[in-house]
């Protein structure tokens, strides 16, 4: 922005005085007005419906607001209560979210890479079929497949998993997977992993196909002797940009995981996940809004969630982001 003030005055290099003279910001903006027209439609809706809610969340988090009476400014009290009084948050939502994210994020990401890599090793004509098989579940993410999981994890011996475990003699009693605090979270993690091969997986797979095969030949001349070395020295550096893109996508997808908990809850007719074992931050936010109408408080929780997502994404940029020489 400071360019606007300084550019026309300061012209240190001799050629700047000629026709190449640096134009003022305003002139350059006027000349490119059509570029602004092209970005305008997107940026208008983007500002209102993406940036807007985030700004509103930041603002509301400082208020006490029940959606009926006028909002009352209370400073950071909401955040104070989150960390000192909210037992559900401290005992369940926060640790659960961490546990869920730490497992689903990295494991799902590694699965994406491993499967993309394995599929890429196949001859070209087979790849499409496997891509489809692996990508299918992520397409189902938006669809309520509650019935599948109810039958698969049913608590009596009619459940597929229970009947299988009973048959091979691992257990003597059927396990109430969907009603026990001990297993509920694992069911959620299992389902998340099942559907984690989404757009990030496609990006990795497509990235692998862009790697110049001569690199591998050159590598084997230079003494790379096995596939693991190949992956480490050639594959990963070559598709680092795609890895970063999928990392961002997988962070976002991971934090959406709370939906699975509420889906299982609704499908089994429970009011809460067993012993709050499946309560994630997203679900906690929803509860405060829908059940208690504490809009300010739930906004403060949203801000925390945003901070967590931001931190995780920063971390993926740290791992895969552009390094100095690029």
């Amino acid at each position, binding site marked *: 922005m400071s360019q606007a003030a300084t550019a026309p005055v300061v012209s240190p290099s001799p050629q700047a005085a000629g026709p190449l003279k640096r134009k003022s910001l305003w002139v350059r903006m006027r000349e490119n007005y059509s570029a602004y027209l092209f970005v305008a*439609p997107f*940026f208008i809706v983007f500002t209102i*419906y993406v940036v807007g809610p985030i700004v509103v969340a930041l603002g509301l988090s400082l208020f006490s607001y029940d959606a009926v009476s006028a909002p009352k400014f209370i400073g950071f009290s909401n955040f104070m209560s989150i960390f000192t009084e909210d037992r559900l948050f401290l005992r369940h939502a926060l640790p659960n979210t961490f546990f869920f994210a730490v497992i689903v994020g990295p494991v799902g990401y590694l699965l994406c890479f491993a499967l993309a890599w394995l599929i890429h090793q196949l001859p070209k004509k087979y790849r499409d079929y496997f891509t489809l098989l692996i990508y299918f579940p992520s397409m189902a993410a938006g669809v309520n497949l509650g019935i599948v999981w109810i039958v698969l994890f049913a608590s009596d011996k009619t459940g597929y998993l229970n009947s299988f475990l009973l048959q091979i003699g691992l257990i003597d009693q059927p396990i109430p997977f969907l009603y026990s605090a001990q297993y509920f979270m694992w069911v959620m993690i299992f389902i998340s992993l099942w559907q984690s091969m989404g757009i990030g997986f496609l*990006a990795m797979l497509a990235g692998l196909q862009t790697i110049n095969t001569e690199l591998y030949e050159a590598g084997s001349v230079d003494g790379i002797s096995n596939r693991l070395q190949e992956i480490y020295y050639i594959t990963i550096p070559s598709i680092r940009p795609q890895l970063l*893109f999928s990392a961002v*996508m997988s962070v976002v997808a991971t934090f*959406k995981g709370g939906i699975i908990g509420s889906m299982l809850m609704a499908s089994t007719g429970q009011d809460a996940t067993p012993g709050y074992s499946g309560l994630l931050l997203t679900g906690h936010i929803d509860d405060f809004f829908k059940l208690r109408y504490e809009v300010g408080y739930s906004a403060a929780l949203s801000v925390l969630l945003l901070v967590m997502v931001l931190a995780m994404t920063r971390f993926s940029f740290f791992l895969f982001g552009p390094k100095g020489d690029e």
Partner: protein
Amino acid sequence: MQAILSGFRRIRKTERFLWFNLLFLIILGLAMFVPILFTVNQAFKPIEELFLLPPTFFAHHPTWFNFKSLLLSDSLIPFSRYVTNTVLVTAVNVFGVIMISAMAAYAFSKRTFPGGRALFSFIIVSLMFDPGQVLIPRYLVVAHTGIMDTYLAHILPFLPMPVCVFLMKQFVDQIPNALMDAAKIDGAKEWMLFTRIVVPMCMPAIATVGILTFQTVWPETESSRLFTQIESQRLLNFYVSSLVNGSGTTSASVGSVNSVAGTGIQAASALIVFVPFVIVFLAFQRKVLQTMANSGIK
């Protein structure tokens, strides 16, 4: 001799790896497919088979019964209304997202203008925001922009998809500048450049963006739940999942009549939402992979 032998051994090793890999992927792929196969079978099972003990996996006497009871359930709003709503809203969204994303991507990629780089890095940052994270503030924004209880509530909030602008921009980057310059010399105006060169050359990216939008909007339930109170304006997946969950928001309750008989109808409803996904994806799969190759964040 030695070299030939070791080369030979290497080929054997490679081959063995390939077979293991193929076998592993077949088993895993099929295992991952089981839940979907189960849903399909469940949807086509007649009621008697749903009650069988032990439960059977495959439907032995497939029937359309579950679909029929879903389509002909005696709710106030006919099923076709939800389908029409959803098809319309999805079509408008797909077209809208493609248009505004492609336009923005063109400007970001082929024009240098003050603030352009800053705006684009802002988009990269916003890749990580899922509107679901700020559902409630989003509800307030929608309420204050005065589009509650209109079809716009299904459309406007879903138009800005940063990931679409990003993917498009990466793709437009591949169009040689010389081509654009040549067209400019031939007297093409800005809009002509966009519609005659950029859009036709970005078809793979456009297909991908279309699919991503489709996958977001088609199964959308949030806008029907929060942004509208008018039953006749709600969308398909909201309707079928309200049947499944038996929440009292809709007048029909086929799903809650009986939990076992209900599963057949639930499966049918899941399929109705899921099948269009699969068809669209199958149709454009190649183009999606072509686009994703350029998806890297550099």
